[in-house]
């Protein structure tokens, strides 16, 4: 070009001059996008800091350099083995038991941890008062108890607490343990720390009790290599001794995976906000481009080349996008302080308050690129304005925008960006495709609804409606309408919120339903054989239905069809899950199968002679894992006695049922003399009754544990609501973006609307009538958008229930009514506030 440098200066000057009176419009257009960019910046920056924190605090995740664990008390052979391992060690025993507060009689199943030394080696036990974290080690009469449990029952420091046969004093409140999260208590139950020396007095651990035994090692000279060598060196011996080893690095990898999932999930949320913001931005810029068509035509007429005239507006929008990106980045940096707080319950590491410039830079680049792509969609139409339209108002653009190759290129870029983003945040390409496809489908459906609504509005106008409704509905399809944008943003927001709420409610109902339907709701575990008659007697005196009393015998699998489990594990041709081979099998024995035992193959058989193989019944999924069927032989080890069995039947078990369910069932006549305990399944009418029964039984027999379904439902609810809070936080982003989009489109189309309004007033419309027109428009838009979102949510939660959770779907009414109503109300409010 001849005057290139001069022209560029002119371009910028012209862009600046021409933006007068539109600068707010331009910035507002970017507001919604800025929110999306903020979410992205915050998450990426947070993600980097999280990675750093996990790297730096790796050792605190396990609290040790490595840990050895077993399902059995350490035998002399194990002790000898442990002695030879490098580093100092601390022993820990973990198991579940009821604890009772004698002052009130309250009982609760708790996670008991007995230590013989100060552990964790890295990180700490946080307690109130702080010194209580170690008091229980020096004074075996004292225990440290989960704070939430103390709050729940109003227990104070110094109060007595009974654990098994021993009464202790509460030394302090347990706040958290390094490497665990505040949400841990919701997952595994309240934690109780006591001294190993006090453990025998509780008389809780007997032969066959379910417990885990740990030796934690501090080995300051450890390196990744030396630990790997250690594992290599002792692998066979540990397998023989049935020991498991875990290292800090392994714990980190495990945790990293879990947190990565949360992180990726949140990023998808940010993507939704970004897309919504982009759509809002595109809609707003479309209004802007429409307003500027005349200017471009005149400039063209005065001799401005097409590219240059277009560049003026590209410059304006580019600067606005840049400012939006900067504002979004600023917001994002501020917001990232909030994320650790939001996720606090799920974070096992401390996150410092630095922010990551690289992450912020990358997300700003992504945000800016996306915002430019979104604004180019409507802006490109300015390139096609013929100069002739300056003399002729009614001229239509020569080409339809969608057929413009540049338009197609931008659209392609957007879809590619979406796919790229999805690829970064899902595990597999197929998932990314699925996410991208799902998004495009939802977008397409909502756009179709918008189209249909506009057509419907046009059609309805011909009917006799009141003036306000007619005008309001006319606004839905008139030029400069917000129908598309609002349907997309509000519809998507509703979709996310409703899917979440419906799924959560459905999951919860699954657990609460049995309690309402006469199903068992209280199970007493660990009942010793000699305690069964008197416990049964006690229960009979109360308002309790005894459902069943089941003996439980614990054994281990040693061989399948004569092949030892160790060999099976090492066999590269087989892929049997570790737990299937090495778990403790809790089995039972029966004369006959119960009604609810559903046989899918074979027949129930009793042993005919003592010399033949014992006929057993196994669960369907277990048969699948072991790839065995009828006639295959399993060998179990019961306290050193080998039980040779043969599979005679296969059952299907509904594990969601609140019963004692078994992988393996023996026939009567084999296990009667083995060490065993009983589970008593009952149904109690009220929560209070259930609590009273637990109190009296535990007071007499502290070794008995009670699983109270109501309690379980409570903790599931707790976990779900904590997770839901995180999800809701992201969904709120999308709704917020939607409302911002609404705000900015209302504000930017205000001038067009103002003229209309003025005209209406001239024609005699009253203020109240005008308000009613606005209300009609926003109520209809809000309702349709939210209904569309709700319908999609119903489909999504139905398919999730069926395919992911495999449970029946019954939608909860409350969220279906409340969420659409709230979003519609918010729409109305924002619309009305801005059009005043």
């Amino acid at each position: 070009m001849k005057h290139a440098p001069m022209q560029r200066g002119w371009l910028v000057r012209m862009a600046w001059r021409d933006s007068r009176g539109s600068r707010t419009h331009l910035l507002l257009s970017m507001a919604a996008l800025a929110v999306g960019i903020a979410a992205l910046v915050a998450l990426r920056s947070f993600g980097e800091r999280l990675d750093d924190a996990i790297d730096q605090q790796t050792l605190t995740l396990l609290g040790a350099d490595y840990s050895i664990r077993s399902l059995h008390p350490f035998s002399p052979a194990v002790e000898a083995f442990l002695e030879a391992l490098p580093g100092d060690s601390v022993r820990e025993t973990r198991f579940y038991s009821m604890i009772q507060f004698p002052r009130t009689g309250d009982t609760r199943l708790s996670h008991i941890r007995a230590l013989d030394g100060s552990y964790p080696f890295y990180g700490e036990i946080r307690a109130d008062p702080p010194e209580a974290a170690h008091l229980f080690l020096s004074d075996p009469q004292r225990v440290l108890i989960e704070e939430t449990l103390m709050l729940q029952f109003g227990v104070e420091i110094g109060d007595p607490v009974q654990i098994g046969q021993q009464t202790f004093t509460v030394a302090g409140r347990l706040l958290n343990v390094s490497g665990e999260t505040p949400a841990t208590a919701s997952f595994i139950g309240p934690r109780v720390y006591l001294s190993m020396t006090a453990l025998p007095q509780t008389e809780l651990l007997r032969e066959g009790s379910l417990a885990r035994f740990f030796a934690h090692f501090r080995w300051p000279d450890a390196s990744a290599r030396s630990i790997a060598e250690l594992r290599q060196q002792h692998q066979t011996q540990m397998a023989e001794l049935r020991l498991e080893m875990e290292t800090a690095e392994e714990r980190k990898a495990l945790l990293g995976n879990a947190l990565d999932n949360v992180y990726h999930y949140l990023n998808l949320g940010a993507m939704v906000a970004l897309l919504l913001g982009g759509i809002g931005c595109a809609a707003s810029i479309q209004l802007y481009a429409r307003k500027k068509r005349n200017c471009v035509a005149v400039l063209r007429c005065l001799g401005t080349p097409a590219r240059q005239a277009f560049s003026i507006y590209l410059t304006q929008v580019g600067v606005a996008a840049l400012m939006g990106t900067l504002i979004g980045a600023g917001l994002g940096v501020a917001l990232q302080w909030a994320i650790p707080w939001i996720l606090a319950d799920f974070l096992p590491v401390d996150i410092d308050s630095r922010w990551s410039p690289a992450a912020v830079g990358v997300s700003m680049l992504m945000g800016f690129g996306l915002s430019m792509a979104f604004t180019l969609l409507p802006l490109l139409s300015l390139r096609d304005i013929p100069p002739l339209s300056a003399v002729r108002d009614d001229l239509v653009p020569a080409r339809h925008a969608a057929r413009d190759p540049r338009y197609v290129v931008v659209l392609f870029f957007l879809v590619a960006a979406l796919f790229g983003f999805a690829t970064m945040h899902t595990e597999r390409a197929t998932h990314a495709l699925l996410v991208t496809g799902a998004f495009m489908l939802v977008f397409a459906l909502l756009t179709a609804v918008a189209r249909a609504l506009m057509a419907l509005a046009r059609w309805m106008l011909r009917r006799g409606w009141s003036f306000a409704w007619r005008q309001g509905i006319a606004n839905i399809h008139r030029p400069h309408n917000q129908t598309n944008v609002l349907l997309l943003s509000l519809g998507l927001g509703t979709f996310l919120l409703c899917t979440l709420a419906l799924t959560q409610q459905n999951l919860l109902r699954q657990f609460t339903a049995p309690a309402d339907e006469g199903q068992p709701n209280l199970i007493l575990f660990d009942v010793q054989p000699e305690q069964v008659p008197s416990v049964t007697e006690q229960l009979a005196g109360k308002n309790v239905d005894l459902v069943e009393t089941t003996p439980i015998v614990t054994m281990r699998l040693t061989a399948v069809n004569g092949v030892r489990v160790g060999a099976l594990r090492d066999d590269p041709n087989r892929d049997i899950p570790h737990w299937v081979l090495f778990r403790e099998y809790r089995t039972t024995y029966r004369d006959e199968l119960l009604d609810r035992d559903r046989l899918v193959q074979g027949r129930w058989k009793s042993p005919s002679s003592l010399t033949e193989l014992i006929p057993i019944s196994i669960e369907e999924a277990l048969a699948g894992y072991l790839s065995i069927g009828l006639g295959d032989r399993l060998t179990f080890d019961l306290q050193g006695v080998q039980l040779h069995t043969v599979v005679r039947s296969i059952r299907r078990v509904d594990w969601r049922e609140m019963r004692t369910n078994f992988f393996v069932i023996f026939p009567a006549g084999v296990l009667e003399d083995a060490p065993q305990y009983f589970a008593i399944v009952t149904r109690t009418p009220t929560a209070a009754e259930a609590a009273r029964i637990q109190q009296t039984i535990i007071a007499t027999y502290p070794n008995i544990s009670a699983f109270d379904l109501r309690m379980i439902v409570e903790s599931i609810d707790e976990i779900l609501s904590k997770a839901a809070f995180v999800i809701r936080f992201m969904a709120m982003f999308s709704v917020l973006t939607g409302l911002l989009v609404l705000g900015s489109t209302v504000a930017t189309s205000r001038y067009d609307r103002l003229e209309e309004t003025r005209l209406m007033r001239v024609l005699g419309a009253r203020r109240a009538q005008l308000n009613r027109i606005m209300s009609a428009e926003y109520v209809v838009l809000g309702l349709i958008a939210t209904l569309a979102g709700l319908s999609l949510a119903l489909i999504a939660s139905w398919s999730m229930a069926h395919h992911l959770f495999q449970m029946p779907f019954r939608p909860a009414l409350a969220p279906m009514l409340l969420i659409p109503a709230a979003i519609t109300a918010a729409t109305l409010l924002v619309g009305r506030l801005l059009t005043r």
Partner: protein
Amino acid sequence: MLKLENIQKTFPSGSRTITVLSDIDLLIRARSTVAIIGPSGSGKTTLLGLCAGLDRPTAGRVLFNDIDLGPLTEDQLADIRRDQTGFVFQTFRLLPSLTAKENVMIPAELKGDPQAAARADELLDQVGLSERRTHYPRQLSGGEQQRVALARAFINQPKIIFADEPTGNLDDETGQHILDLLFGLNRDQGTTLMVVTHDHALTERVQSIVTLKSGRIVATRATGHR
């Protein structure tokens, strides 16, 4: 200056094509003033657009200073418009976000003229609006806006001015004032003028009048004005 040879212009309209202009031959000499009159819809604006290179004929040639506009690219046409033509519209067409002076400066700035600001001041002075330089179009009356538009049209000392019903949106008195300015500037700068009009007061000032009817030239008449 401007020569039209056997121009035809049609538009596709659905499945049919409508012929807006046909058999147009016209010669406009340098420094002459020509009015184009005719009933509404007869094709006057279309003809003006073809002459100014805003649009291309379906058949025939438009020669601007002996240059055939047909093979030129859009950008070359834009250069010609910028350097050699000026435009006056019925609806003024000022950019609403720019001040009067900034509006006037556009063509000069487009050209990279370092004197743009000075020339704009000078022209605004000539149309009697030096006091209103910093005002925005919406702060000006219709007549004032059209005066700014005149200043803008003349700033690059164009060879030819195209005006499409320049007084169409103004009352008689204001219209007269605009015509005084238009013809005054035209005379001072020795510009060619092609103006579409319904205004009888205007036809009395031009040298020749071309009458269009249904897309054909039905009469070309010299008025005898100098």
